[in-house]
């Protein structure tokens, strides 16, 4: 594992990464199936971090950040997201003004986070859990919730908590060209360099996973989605996956996209697919 020195200026790191980036030349634009993508990325991490069992990637960066792991485990003993779970349970159980509840929309709930994100044939798009929640609210005459901050995180935290132990199993239905196209779109997003710093998601979360950027150890893309929503000390609150995407886009000085817009939903579809088979363990806590 090569280490990039912590430099105060991100520009310096950019230079390093760009140089590192030049050391390889992009190849193979041949089509690979989603399963081939997933296997290839797993193989990459198995070679990069020898001896770490696949299931450990559900713990994100703590799969290999042994120092950070200690304080993380200490925090998890008194989880900062507990209040969110409680509030979310109240939301789940409190009927809407029309007397219906979330359960009427989601009969398999509240332990059903594993069913998302999924391809919705009727709507011809990827539907994520936050989007489904708002569609349920609106169908019942309630106002939609905001997608990054606020109470959507409570209901998501409760659903995530109830869904613990289930496994990620994103399906790309055969005979649905739209679903595969959405996956491919998300994959392209993930590997596309953007912003003034010219980084792709993959630059940080695959190529440089385990290297440090400022004070952060970079997490692996594998396992990125298992624990959302996440309590971040930096936010002082629980936040959604798309809030995190926004932050990561801004970090490289790219203009972020709309939370729950097509770009991020397709990205989520691809990214979650990579974690197929990994256990859902949300909500989580991170630095």
């Amino acid at each position, binding site marked *: 594992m090569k280490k990039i020195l912590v430099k105060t200026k991100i520009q310096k790191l950019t230079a390093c990464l760009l140089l590192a980036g030049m050391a*390889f*030349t*992009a*190849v*193979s*634009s*041949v089509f*690979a199936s989603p399963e*081939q993508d997933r296997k*290839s*990325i797993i*193989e*990459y991490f198995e070679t990069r971090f020898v001896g770490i069992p696949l299931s450990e990637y559900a713990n994100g960066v703590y799969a290999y950040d042994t120092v950070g792991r200690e304080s993380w485990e200490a925090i998890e003993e008194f989880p900062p997201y507990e209040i969110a779970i409680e509030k979310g349970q109240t939301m789940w159980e409190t009927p809407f003004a029309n007397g219906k509840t979330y359960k009427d929309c989601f009969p398999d709930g509240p332990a059903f986070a594993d069913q998302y994100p999924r391809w919705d044939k009727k709507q011809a798009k990827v539907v994520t859990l936050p989007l489904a929640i708002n569609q349920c609210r609106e169908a019942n005459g309630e106002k939609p919730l905001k997608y990054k901050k606020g109470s959507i995180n409570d209901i998501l935290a409760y659903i995530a908590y109830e869904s613990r132990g289930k496994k990620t199993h994103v399906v790309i239905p055969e005979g649905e060209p739209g679903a595969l196209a959405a996956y*491919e779109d998300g*994959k*392209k997003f993930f*590997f*596309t*360099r*953007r*912003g*003034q710093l*010219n980084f792709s998601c*993959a630059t940080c979360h*695959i*190529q440089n996973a385990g290297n440090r950027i400022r004070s952060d150890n970079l997490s692996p893309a594998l396992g990125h989605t298992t624990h959302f929503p996440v309590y971040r000390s930096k936010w002082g609150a629980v936040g959604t996956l798309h809030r995190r995407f926004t932050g990561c*886009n*801004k970090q490289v*000085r*790219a*203009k*972020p*996209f709309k939370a729950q817009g097509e*770009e991020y939903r397709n990205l989520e579809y691809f990214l979650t697919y990579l974690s197929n088979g990994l256990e859902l363990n949300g909500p989580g806590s991170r630095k």
Partner: protein
Amino acid sequence: MKLAIKLLLIVVLGFTSTVILAAASDKAAQDAIAAADQARKKAASVKGEWRDTGKIIKQAEQTRKKGDFDKAIKLANKAERQGKYGYEQAMSQQTLKMPSYLKY
């Protein structure tokens, strides 16, 4: 006498030319800002807009309103360059190429 008239002429000329120059600069600043916004939109149309381009354009506009046309033009040009780079960056990656560290 003659000298006084000459001096007066110089002063008057100098003054009018400053006015003309200043007027040209405001127009130039407006044009530069419009060009920058066009470049920003073009980048956005291929999902390549950078984070700060819009902010820099706003700054340019505020600076122009305060009458600092040179600075406004500088800012606008910077934003226009960002728009161009963002567009080129996105266009250069129209077909996805998987990095070679991933084996298939």
